[in-house]
């Protein structure tokens, strides 16, 4: 069954089973490999994308549940004002080490700032605790979110 999905402003037709997780459609079918696989169970947040602006774990989101919703991935988040600010803060604060989880971190952080422009520490904990970073960049992620919020 071919499905039409909207990704980063473009429409794509994909021919996969309806229960296929969005993650694999993005990575293996469309070649958008910036969204990462970490756990497959929504436990680590590496696969976070935006579906109509909502942070969503693409590894457990069946492709047939998306309909005409707009999907935004790390490849396009820099085109939004908030996404660009987050990316800049990430570089200014030298957040990144291995970088593998950072696509998901940036997607979660930009969704946070979109809903709460001036997040408290508790807001940051709530929004970001679903994203694991094995390199332990949490201290800098927190600083970078605060920088992006104030800048």
């Amino acid at each position: 069954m071919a499905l039409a999905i909207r990704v980063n402003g473009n429409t794509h037709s994909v021919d996969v089973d309806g229960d296929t997780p969005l993650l694999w459609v993005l990575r293996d079918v469309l070649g958008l490999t910036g969204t990462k696989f970490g756990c497959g169970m929504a436990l680590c947040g590496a696969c976070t994308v935006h579906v109509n602006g909502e942070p969503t774990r693409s590894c457990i989101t069946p492709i047939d549940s998306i309909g005409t919703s707009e999907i935004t991935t790390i490849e396009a988040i820099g085109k939004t004002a908030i996404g660009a600010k987050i990316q800049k803060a990430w570089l200014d604060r030298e957040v990144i080490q291995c970088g593998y989880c950072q696509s998901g971190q940036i997607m979660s952080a930009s969704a946070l700032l979109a809903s709460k422009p001036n997040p408290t520490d508790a807001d940051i904990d709530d929004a970001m605790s679903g994203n694991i970073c094995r390199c332990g960049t949490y201290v800098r992620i927190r600083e970078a979110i605060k920088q992006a919020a104030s800048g």
Partner: protein
Amino acid sequence: MVIDHHASRTTRLGEVPSANVLSRRGFLQVGAAAGGGLMLSLSLPFGNREANAADTFVPNAFIRIGSDGQIVLIMPYVEMGQGTYTSIPMLIAEELEVDLKQVRLEHAPPNEKLYANPLLGVQATGNSNAIRGAWQPLRQAGAAARTMLVAAAAKKWNVDPASCRAQSGEVLHPPTGRSIKYGALAADAAGMPVPEKIALKRPQDFKLIGTPAKRLDTPAKVNGTAVYGIDVRPSGVKIATLAQSPVFGGRVKSVDDSAAKIVKGVRQIVRLDDAVAVVADHMGAAKKGLAALKIEWDDGPHAKLTTEDIARELDQAALRSGAVAQTIGDVDKAMASAVTKVEALYHAPFLAHAAMEPMNCTVHLRKDECEIWVGSQAMARVQAMAAKAAGLSPEKVIVHNHLLGGGFGRRLEADGAVRAVQIAQHVDGPVKVVWTREEDIQHDMYRPYWVDRISAGLDAKGRPVAWNNRFAGSSVIARWLPPGFKNGLDPDSTEGAIDLVYDLPNFRVEYIRVEPPGIPTAFWRSVGPSHNVFVTESFVDELAAAAKQDAVGFRRALLDKSPRARAVLDLAAEKSDWVKPLPNGSGRGVSLQSAFGSYLAQVAEVEVSKNGAVRVRRLVCAVDCGTVVNPDTVQAQIQSGFIFGTTAALYGEITLKDGRVEQSNFDTYQMLRMNEAPAIEVHIVNSQEPPGGIGETGTSAIVPAIANAIFAATGKRLRKMPVDPAVLKKPT
């Protein structure tokens, strides 16, 4: 900067025509580069003993200055988040007098002879030694190149080289205001004599070294364009995922793949002796196919194995005498005369690496060659083991290295590449083998389980007069680098247990190698010290308590011969407000570590709730890692190591039941998260000693500080990691 991921065959670096060798025992060769320009070939010291002994010149790193002015560094270390791709070019740029932006990095192709890491002796990035190995030779090479470029300019202008100077990628002649760029001089410089003596800059003249440099590898990591091993997509690639025997050493008995075959997108089922793989158009189909397989396993000899079996065996082994790693004075005599004796038994668990990028490897096996795409800490090992699996000679195996989504020691192993080759042998065209997180955790190669029997004697004043430590566990070196295991010992297993900073007049450490059945072991971030420092620094704390002394003061009194250790201890105590009281249920713990060539002292502040839950609030570190190349990287790596170690202290444990690893994903193998992350302060001591390693230090150092803080908060001594809240729960 661009990082080129180029293949082994496309580079022919050994060809350096009309070369001048610095000296018979020299490390540097200079000549013309292919296509014009200057080529420096370096032989990093200590690495290739055979080559050194034979007095032949075997280079293992290269610097090319092109006629376009581009400086290319071909280096044998990989980036896995530790900042090497920034700090190594800083060494060259400093002495060459160029902007960091002018240096471009290329991955070294796999060649064990050419790219041996000078401290490891094999081509690998690990043991926190990239900067330690490169520190002298890369700066010397940069300085030699600069001298030759200046000489070429001086000759052109017919002036005294002493009247010229190098700056920002050009040679200047201040008296006449002339300047000429390196690119225009590179070809001429290749014909200049190699300087007899190389003068390195004085530390006070450093412009780059010691100043925070922006990471060069990060811009591609914020927009999804960075390519990790898991991201490669050779034309026509299929995606495979796999189920390996749930018991190590087991076999496939039967497979019913009828339901898997009809999953849309599934192309092929590959049955191996001890694994089954599903090959599909995409990972979604491969996983769905895998779930539809009905596999019966023959569990083999380890079908009933439990962690308790292994721990019991190690407990027993540690009763026997072992290989003596270090002995000072007369321990038995001193122990007999001690006023107070303290004995303890410590256990350190198996740990998985759980890098965020699950294990993966892409292989295209053709008739007589094999192409591999992977992120590896040890490319030459991948090449050699893949060649063996494919039945090819190593030069027929092309390895493309990519960014690593975390290494932590897991990617020093080549088992993933071997597995991918085995699957590729059944697949027409390229296949990317991606492990699920469950496979990644249940088929890791684990940080060994260790058991330590340790005892000490104190004199009437509470000063330790005897120290006796005997520990048992796996030697990773014995498997990974067999020549490194000699007379029952290897340098990794004992690091952090011997050569302590403390003045201990009667001291003995013995090691008993015991390889556990049915579970493979491997290097894990902070390697030997990951358990030794936990035991040693917890036990020093026990001695301080037995002597009824302050934990910092007790240590300090033993540091007369270790001024660097004493300085970091004092600084950590000061910055952490060590003497300030904390509320009930909270406590501070200290630890002191000398490992990887660096000194760390840290104070952990924890809070323990009535139900035994531990919250790590604040970590303060004082570090002396010698000369600091990139201070921001030192800060970042301590932060990183502390989070990694705190994760292990609070949650890290891999257990076996019925031969199977019981943990499978981040629900059962937990990671520290943002809401649990402590505040971390890092204070760097100014030092002009040679650089020490930094990527692993924090991980081993912080675990005992946390355990000691829990003791301060609760009076309970934790001799087994991870923290067990049930033990800390207050009776109701």
